[in-house]
């Protein structure tokens, strides 16, 4: 389990290096992905440290999930063109702050994984990702200029996020339930959950790197 964790941390760190080296040439969407990777690195390293020190790191998990939601909302703000959707994306972090707070203090509590808010976050991210896919599919400018969607960095960033949230949404929804109930073996569930999260997270990081590699070749940025 720990090996998978360190591998994931290593991949995050490796992907962060090229983003850091090219930071000045990055377009806004790539910069937000850079902040997301940085946050994920802090998330992983911080949660490990807190677990070693205090045994329970769930409050840190919940806090970082909210920060990730804000950063990813900003990423989608920089990519999505629809005014209505932009209006929603810009205001949803405030709503989500309320949801996260209620979940943190009232529903699941700070000692457990906040399934309600994290599940909602994953669902919203999937919705944003599909919206961006739809936008890129029907983008007349791309078709007119014969630009293939897979030559856009935003497509790869979005694919990474879509893949990650599609794979983790079920665990996000059910994890607090498993932590609280004694009927099932919660440790096994947590182990499986983290293993899949780390594995898919690593794949997402690779997709982010592919996206970054597309930024130097392309002249048209879809934002």
């Amino acid at each position, binding site marked *: 389990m720990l090996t998978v964790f360190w591998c994931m941390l290593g991949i995050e760190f490796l992907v962060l290096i090229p983003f850091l080296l090219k930071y000045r040439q990055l377009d806004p969407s790539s910069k937000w992905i850079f902040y997301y990777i940085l946050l994920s690195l802090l998330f992983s390293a911080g949660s490990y440290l807190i677990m070693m020190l205090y045994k329970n790191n769930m409050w840190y998990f919940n806090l970082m999930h909210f920060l990730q939601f804000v950063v990813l909302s900003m990423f989608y703000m920089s990519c999505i063109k629809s005014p209505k959707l932009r209006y929603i994306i810009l205001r949803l972090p405030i709503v989500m702050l309320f949801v996260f707070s209620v979940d943190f203090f009232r529903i699941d509590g700070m000692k457990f994984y906040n399934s309600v808010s994290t599940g909602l976050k994953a669902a919203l991210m999937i919705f944003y990702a599909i919206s961006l896919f739809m936008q*890129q599919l029907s983008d007349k400018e791309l*078709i*007119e200029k014969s630009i293939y*969607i897979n030559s856009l960095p935003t497509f790869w960033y979005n694919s990474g996020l*879509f*893949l990650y949230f599609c*794979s983790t949404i*079920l665990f996000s929804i059910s994890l607090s339930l498993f932590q609280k109930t004694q009927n099932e073996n919660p440790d096994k569930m947590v182990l499986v959950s983290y293993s899949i999260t780390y594995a898919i997270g690593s794949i997402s990081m690779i997709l982010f790197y592919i996206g970054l590699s597309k930024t130097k070749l392309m002249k048209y940025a879809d934002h």
Partner: protein
Amino acid sequence: MRITDIIIVGTTVMLILAIVVILLVMLQQKQVIQHKLIIRDKDLQLQRERLEAILQGQELERKRIAEDLHDEVGAQLSVLKLTIGGLQPLLKTGNGETERLKETKEFTDTIIQQLRFISQSLHPQALDNLGLAHALDSFCNLMNKNKQVAIHFKTPESTIPVDRSKALHVYRVVQELINNIVKHAEATSIEITYKNTPNLLTVEVADNGNGKLLDTLNESKKKSGSLGLKNIESRLNIINGTINYHKRNPIGTVAQINVENYQQSAQN
């Protein structure tokens, strides 16, 4: 089945679905672009065919006018010249009528020459009968009679026959280039070099002018109504030919026309 297993299976299904969605998005957009490219290619082909038809119609009309001028007006002028020649011995007065008749005959000669030049420019008969190299040579000889500019034509001893349609386009391009040189370059000499290998036909038009032709060409490219240059480009585009312009040492400009696969096909 335990809840853990259900969630693992559900997650796997979600993961597969996510991958399928990503792949479908990529494929769908690729198909749309490819479809668009096919339509664009068809449009271009249609435009090309239309242009070719227009130019073909233009050439047919030119040919008809050239033949009418040569066969009818030319023949009538020759009869007029002969008639004037026949009148000469009949004039016996010493009041200068003989000189005036001689002048009229010379004037008729000039008209016949000009008519030939116009007829030749409208449709080079030599192109049909003797091929591109001879037609260009003949055009150079005609231009040399104007004495505006001296044109030297260089050709290898043996030339490979050029496809009839391609030859006409190359001929027109050379004609247009020479017109441009006469109009803009203030050149005193033009050198046309004709080269051919089995796969490539090259015609080089070099002048000793002021070199402003390159600037004129660049300006013309920016303008929307530069008919001459567009004509050159359209004609070369039809025959998949290219043209390159560069400065000539020490003075002047060189235009190089290249046409690949220029030979007559077997069915022609």
